[in-house]
């Protein structure tokens, strides 16, 4: 992971800076359960503007459920979520999307029938408005709009260095690339908050380093706030400004990487000490 470290050193401006931003999202004693099974119990934490926030924990710790709560896919039975200062009641996923929350998925959820280009274009859906009539004519407004957004998408393709697979159906791509395309799709939404669900799961070291570089670049170039779930401790420690640790749906630690790493509770959780 040295590559990453050097990346950070390269740009002193970026290193500590983000943590300075003010609160973007706050989760207050949220609990979620499925038919009696508690997935999340009374969890609170916040995400600051411009930081990279990691959510870690052993399997079944409720990490993914947490993301699902944040972007409105699950509705917690208790607790509130404050997004950009507004306390949020029940909200539909597509409302979350239009509020500037984008995400990627633990097991890639690309649109299999489409090419890389179309997948990333789909991320622009919310920003395109030309109505059915114009779409039918194509020539004129619809085409103009399409091209305007195609340019944005091409920037992302260039940014992620996936020119060579631009027109390949995503189904045919190797796993690592699919993850990259999915990131591109999320970026296309130009989100305020980007949720990454195990962006590096099942990647080899090289792919991980690439992905880490991209994540850092996203954070620095676009100033996007990022919340990510990741298993690879090394990655988390290098990438994130602050870390939340969940275990059995409860929060057991929260703070800067070094601190968290030192915490006894965390060590126990990972060594699987019985409670």
């Amino acid at each position: 992971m040295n590559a990453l470290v050097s990346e950070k050193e390269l740009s002193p401006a970026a290193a500590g800076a983000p943590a300075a931003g003010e609160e973007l999202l706050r989760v207050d004693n949220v609990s979620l359960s499925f038919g009696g099974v508690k997935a999340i119990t009374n969890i609170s934490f916040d995400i600051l503007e411009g930081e990279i926030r990691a959510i870690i924990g052993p399997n079944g710790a409720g990490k993914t459920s947490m993301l699902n709560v944040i972007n409105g896919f699950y509705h917690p039975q208790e607790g509130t979520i404050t997004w950009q200062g507004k306390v949020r009641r029940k909200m539909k996923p597509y409302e979350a999307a239009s509020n500037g929350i984008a995400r990627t998925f633990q097991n890639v959820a690309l649109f299999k029938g489409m090419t890389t280009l179309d997948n990333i274009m789909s991320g622009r859906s919310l920003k395109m408005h030309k109505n059915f009539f114009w779409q039918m004519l194509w020539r004129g407004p619809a085409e103009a709009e399409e091209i305007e957004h195609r340019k944005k998408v091409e920037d992302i393709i260039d940014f992620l260095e996936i020119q060579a697979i631009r027109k390949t159906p995503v189904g045919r791509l190797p796993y690592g690339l699919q993850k990259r395309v999915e990131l591109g799709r999320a970026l296309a939404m130009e989100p305020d908050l980007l949720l990454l669900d195990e962006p590096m799961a099942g990647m080899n070291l090289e792919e991980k380093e690439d992905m880490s570089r991209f994540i850092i670049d996203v954070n620095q170039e676009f100033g996007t706030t990022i919340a990510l779930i990741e298993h690879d401790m090394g990655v988390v420690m290098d990438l994130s400004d602050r870390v939340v640790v969940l275990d059995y749906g409860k929060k057991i630690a929260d703070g800067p990487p070094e601190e968290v790493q030192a915490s006894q509770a965390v060590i126990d959780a990972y060594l699987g000490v019985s409670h």
Partner: protein
Amino acid sequence: MFYREAGQFKTSYQADQALMPIRQDRIGLAAILLIAFVAIPFFANDFFLTSIMIPFLVFSLAAIGLNVLTGFCGQLSLGTGAFMGVGAYAAYKLTTIFPDANVILMVLLSGVFSAGVGAIFGLPSLRIKGLYLAVTTLAAQFFLEWCFIRIGWLYNYNASGAIEIPHREAFGVVVSGAESSPLVRYFIVLTITVGIAMLMANVLRGRIGRSWMMIRDMDIAAELMGIRPLQTKLLAFAVSSYICGVAGAMMVFFWLNAAEPSSYSIQLSFQVLFMVILGGLGSLAGAFMGAAFIWILPVFLKFIPGVLGFDVAAEAVEHVTFMIVGALIIFFLIVEPHGFARLWQIGKQKLRVWPFPY
């Protein structure tokens, strides 16, 4: 082999996003259109036009309609026949209410009604998925069929319970009714079908088409990217039904001249569904191929015994045709579940990379 793409480079996004970026494809399409608009009218006889080309085009349009819903938006529907019926009856009523209005306009207008009906029956799609949805669409099929029978107003209380298309003129020529010439009808049907196909091609490559495919491929992800499932699905239902409606109206106005409720029975729904599946889900070209296969094959089969020179009872031929079609459908599903469109895709790819295998 025939594809020589060297030197075909794009210097603008317009060119890059064109419907057919490859020159050879454009030439091919042009050739087909030329045949359809010039060669066929010039050479074909009335039989060929009325019992092959016109129905083929009508079904192609219907297949496009269903393909929008099932192939592109992933919502399985068995109500196509009924939605076509709505179009037919709507057009019939419109032209009885406005006898002087241009009947072609009425036909195009009739789709609006089926669109409305389609949207209503699309509502369950929000909560119901897959085969369950398919079954619920049968509700539309049977309910509407029932309406066609029971609501006399729809067929002007004809004793026969059927609708007979009145004599109508447009632009000074007879376009509907018994004495309209097949050639005129052919041109109308051809123009409408091609026109709608082109417009849909545009919709499908743009934002709306993408949103449909997003729902089809991964509805959860789509929703998390800001796609509103209900609106998107309903739009698909409406558009699909509109096209089917127009097809249905053309079916009675420019092909059959008369129709009774049974013309729009579930059998029709199946027929169109077959065209879509065998043609290839999610492919406009496939819709045409499927229609050609399902419609023209039986017509063709009927002639075989005569050609081979031994006389078989008409209904026997009928039955055998049924068997053969059924068997062939199964056969093709086994050979290539993604339909003729995929077969064509594979072939085209081979030609593009010729002489290499990949």
